[in-house]
């Protein structure tokens, strides 16, 4: 299986409230909240760390879950977030320039 890299999209606002992430999409003003596991994934989405590493080093280290099952769940979760445009998924590392804010 090829590596999957994830990065936070630049069209969102985000803040942690009581350990859970609030995320607002600028595209359609949809508001999301992530549970503690989702919040860990979001915070780890730096474009450089593979999804497998996130599951192994952050999720499995924190929660008692089967790594294979966890990876499957996380892939589905990430696909859902990507569908809403709040996370970017790639099979190659994602450079900061691609997702950083700013422009001309």
């Amino acid at each position: 299986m090829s590596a999957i890299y994830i990065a936070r999209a630049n069209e969102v606002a985000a803040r942690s409230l009581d350990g859970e992430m609030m995320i607002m999409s600028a595209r359609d003003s949809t508001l999301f909240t992530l549970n503690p596991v989702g919040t860990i994934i979001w915070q780890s989405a730096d474009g450089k760390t593979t999804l497998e590493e996130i599951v192994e080093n952050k999720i499995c280290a924190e929660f008692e879950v089967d790594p294979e099952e966890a990876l499957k769940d996380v892939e589905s979760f990430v696909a859902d977030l990507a569908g809403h445009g709040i996370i970017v998924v790639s099979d190659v590392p994602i450079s900061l320039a691609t997702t950083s804010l700013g422009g001309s």
Partner: protein
Amino acid sequence: MSLMQELAQRALDRGVPLSVQLDVTYRCNERCIHCYLDHDDHGEMTTAEIRALLDQLAEAGVFFLTLSGGEVFMRMDFFDIIEYARSLMFCVKIKTNAFMIREKEARRLSDLAVQEVQVSIYSHRPEVHDAITLLRGSLKRSVAGIRLLRAHGVKVVIANVLMMRNLSDHAGVKQLAKELGAEYTIDPTITPMMDGNRSVLQLGLGVPQLQDVFHNADLVGDVDEFCTPPPAMNDDVLQDLPCSAGHTACYISPYGDLFPCVQFPLPSGNVRRQKFIDIWRDSEQLNEVRTITARDLPVCSGCGHVGTCTRCPGLAFMEGNMRGPSTQDCEKSFARTGIPSANMHLKNTRSMPRGLVQITIPSPISSVA
């Protein structure tokens, strides 16, 4: 309960300042006849001060950041401020007259994923709008700015402040908003000036005009629902907090002064001299505001409207007592339902001619007694 309401409740329970309005300047290129601000610069915070403040706000948990003024684009560093705010992942809303928004600015706001830009439009007719802003050509430029923002996919909300001078133009403004692909909202509240001068209030709508507005389905949606009489008072209603001011929201002026809300000028600290979080947690004034529930309002707690009234504690404060009624909101409750508020009853009693309350017993009866 919606997700937003859930988050607001959680922020309230944890004492988190979910929303902050930061006015970056009071300077403005317009001179709106109803404006509550002094437009001179009395020493605005520098870019570095604002960046340091934004760090503190993010650390404190602020999510919704409204950048307003004055006219925000009067600051040459305004894009530096937005860029820094967005790098801290704030949900940024901007209030502007859009006069200075050209292609470059619209593109930049889109690139920075600003959540929403709110623009005040008073009329679809230049002769009315420009006579309120006192800036010739302002409607044309503001509309051009909105068009550019929309062309770049930026969400725009047109705020239509209603006054006697532009009351007949709301349908035209609403139609203009539709053509521009902008949302439309009305605001029938005129705020006294921050120095306490209340003369601008005479520009606002009277009760008959408010009644027309509140019974217009084009403006309020479901009139029956909007104008429904208040439910019977109960203990839950009396435990309610007036609004988010000082509880999950606050306002910071260009000079660093912190208040519960832009419409609630109770000085509560200054971020140039104190850490934001220290003011938020320990300010005597904010803590006093937080203790007030509907039960503590001497007049309003006995008013039938208490559960549904839009009573603004800031407007009440500007009338002289933050626990008192806000006459403007009493008038709105009356305009919606036709039921006078307790405050209106009280004022009518107080204003009765003296001769009517000084009842004397006719002498024949006294004699009999």
